[in-house]
């Protein structure tokens, strides 16, 4: 049955029935191609999604001051809350066991000059630990250290794009930039996966920022990195307790919702993961739907192909072909076509996905990809169902009396 002669006969038939071969193969290739592209795009969508939320550490709480919305302990409502250095120390001392690091963040924007090149950049007064919360990657030089903080050094760590804008090809490390009339020495250049805006930032010691602003000790926001081992529930409890501590300290009513805001990345992450999961389900649903559509398409073409060959089957039977031989020939032929075209459709899809990379980022599709095992599985399913779909009419055709088959026009 699998002799060289059988294959010769099969390839001969395939070659000489170009339209039929094309129709079967095209349906198959198109089906699997669409499955691969669709699944790849959905994966790309998930990538974009993860990229949006994945550039910062996930074990982070952002604490912002607000305005009170109710009077408390003799204070009127609508009072502005202001953090200062002591809040930083209090949180660090009280929750030392649960906290990995803590850093303030004071954000300002100012004109930055270097040798006639100038531009407006956002700068952040931070502590060294800030490097962990933003996952800042140092390309050259170093990040701020504790010594810089205590001596209130006029040091700046600049983003990759700042360096590119101001210094062109010049080496920025050790050079001085003028930021708001004050000279800062560039001690490091960083990159960040969070996108262009994150690479147009300048980090300086928060104490230096306070010094510049008349030697105060005010802090705009506080970033807390908690120990990941406390888990989701621990993070939620920590959030609650920090809020409680700060509310007592700042005389804010416990019920007042607008005195202090905490953004808990762990909580957001959980929601995002749920969203990603829903996206995954949608992707799976699409994939299954496309495979089913592919099966229907391939089955239809198979039924049509066998139907078209009824007379030929009759002739072959009159010449002495047994039903088994008729079925196996038709099936081998169909399976050969579906295997060849199925895999070429699959590889075409995979290659296109690989070459797309970041080209569709504007449409929220980043690095689309398909798991090769999934692609192979989908292709095999289509081939198997295609064969079954071919087998049923082939079997029926082989059972038709040759005299009836011969009458078929």
């Amino acid at each position, binding site marked *: 049955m699998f002799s060289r*002669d059988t294959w*010769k*006969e099969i390839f*001969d*038939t395939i070659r*000489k*029935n170009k339209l039929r071969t094309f129709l079967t193969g095209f349906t198959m290739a198109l089906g699997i191609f669409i499955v691969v592209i669709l699944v790849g795009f959905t994966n790309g969508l998930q990538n974009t999604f993860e990229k949006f939320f994945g550039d910062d550490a996930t074990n982070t709480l952002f604490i912002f001051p607000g305005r009170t919305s109710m009077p408390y302990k003799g204070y009127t409502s609508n009072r502005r809350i202001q953090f200062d250095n002591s809040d930083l120390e209090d949180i660090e001392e009280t929750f030392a066991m649960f906290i990995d690091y803590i850093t303030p963040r004071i954000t300002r924007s100012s004109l930055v000059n270097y040798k006639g090149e100038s531009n407006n950049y956002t700068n952040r007064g931070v502590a060294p630990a800030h490097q962990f919360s933003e996952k800042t990657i140092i390309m050259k030089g170093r990040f701020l250290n504790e010594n810089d903080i205590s001596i209130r050094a006029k040091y700046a760590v600049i983003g990759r794009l700042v360096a590119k804008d101001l210094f062109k090809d010049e080496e920025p490390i050790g050079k001085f930039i003028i930021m708001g009339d004050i000279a800062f020495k560039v001690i490091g250049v960083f990159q960040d996966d969070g996108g262009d805006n994150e690479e147009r930032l300048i980090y300086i010691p928060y104490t230096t920022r306070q010094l510049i602003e008349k030697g105060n000790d005010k802090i705009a926001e506080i970033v807390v990195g908690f120990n990941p081992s406390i888990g989701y529930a621990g993070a939620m409890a920590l959030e609650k307790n920090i809020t409680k501590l700060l509310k007592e300290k700042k005389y804010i009513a416990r019920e007042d919702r607008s005195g202090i805001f905490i953004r808990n990345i762990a909580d957001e992450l959980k929601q995002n993961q749920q969203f990603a999961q829903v996206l995954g389900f949608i992707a799976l649903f699409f994939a299954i739907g496309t495979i089913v559509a592919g099966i229907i398409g391939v089955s239809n073409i198979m039924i049509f192909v066998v139907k078209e060959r009824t*007379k*030929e089957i*009759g*002739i*072959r*039977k*009159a*010449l*002495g*072909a*047994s*039903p*088994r*031989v008729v079925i196996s020939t038709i099936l081998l032929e169909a399976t050969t076509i579906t295997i060849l075209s199925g895999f070429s459709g699959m590889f075409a899809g995979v290659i296109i996905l690989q070459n797309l990379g970041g080209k569709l980022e504007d449409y929220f599709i980043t690095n689309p990809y398909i798991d090769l095992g999934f692609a192979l599985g989908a292709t095999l399913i289509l081939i198997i169902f295609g064969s079954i779909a071919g087998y049923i009419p082939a079997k029926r055709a*082989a*059972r038709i*009396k*040759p*005299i009836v088959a*011969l009458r078929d026009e």
Partner: protein
Amino acid sequence: MIEIKDLHKSYQMGSNSLHVLKGINFSVEPGELVAIMGSSGSGKSTLLNILGMLDEANSGTYTLDSVPIVDLNETKAAEYRNKFLGFIFQSFNLINYKSAVENVALPLYYQGKSRKDRNAIALEYLDRVGLKPWANHLPSELSGGQKQRVAIARAMAANPKVLLADEPTGALDSKTSYEVMDLIQKINDEGNTILVVTHEEDIAHMCKRIVYLKDGVIVEDKKVDQVRASQYV
């Protein structure tokens, strides 16, 4: 060679039963050239289909080359057809995407002969019907008479015991018909047993014996003086 006793065949048409063959008794000796004649509806094609194992009888016995043809499944029937019978159809029934030589080689493929042998034998038979130069042409590139000669070569290629021809000249003009009959006569001269179903009187008289069928029974069975087709060609 062929021995038929009390053969009955009826078709179920909805609630009606159409009795087509009503007890046929009939035998053919080796080397005979028999014409089966009758108007349409007389049952002649049905008889030929049963002889060709393309259709089954309801009752009666059929012996072919001393082999009782009974209780055939499709696989067995296919094997017997391949071994015993060669078919020539009115509409030629060539496979349209295969060349002349490939069509002729097809029954040999089902006999399990090697590709080399098949092609050699097929070419030899094509040569015998005078179509060797057209061996690699597709059926669509051949005339009606040429197609029928390819079909005859194909029927002969498997070296069958009996050739069955169902209206072999039905789709041909008279000149081409005589050419085909000339070929059939020559094949018969070499000792092959041939049955020809026809409704044309002149074609029937080119055989050696005529069996007249009417309403499912044999009404006349006579030997005739063969008219040689070669004189018209």
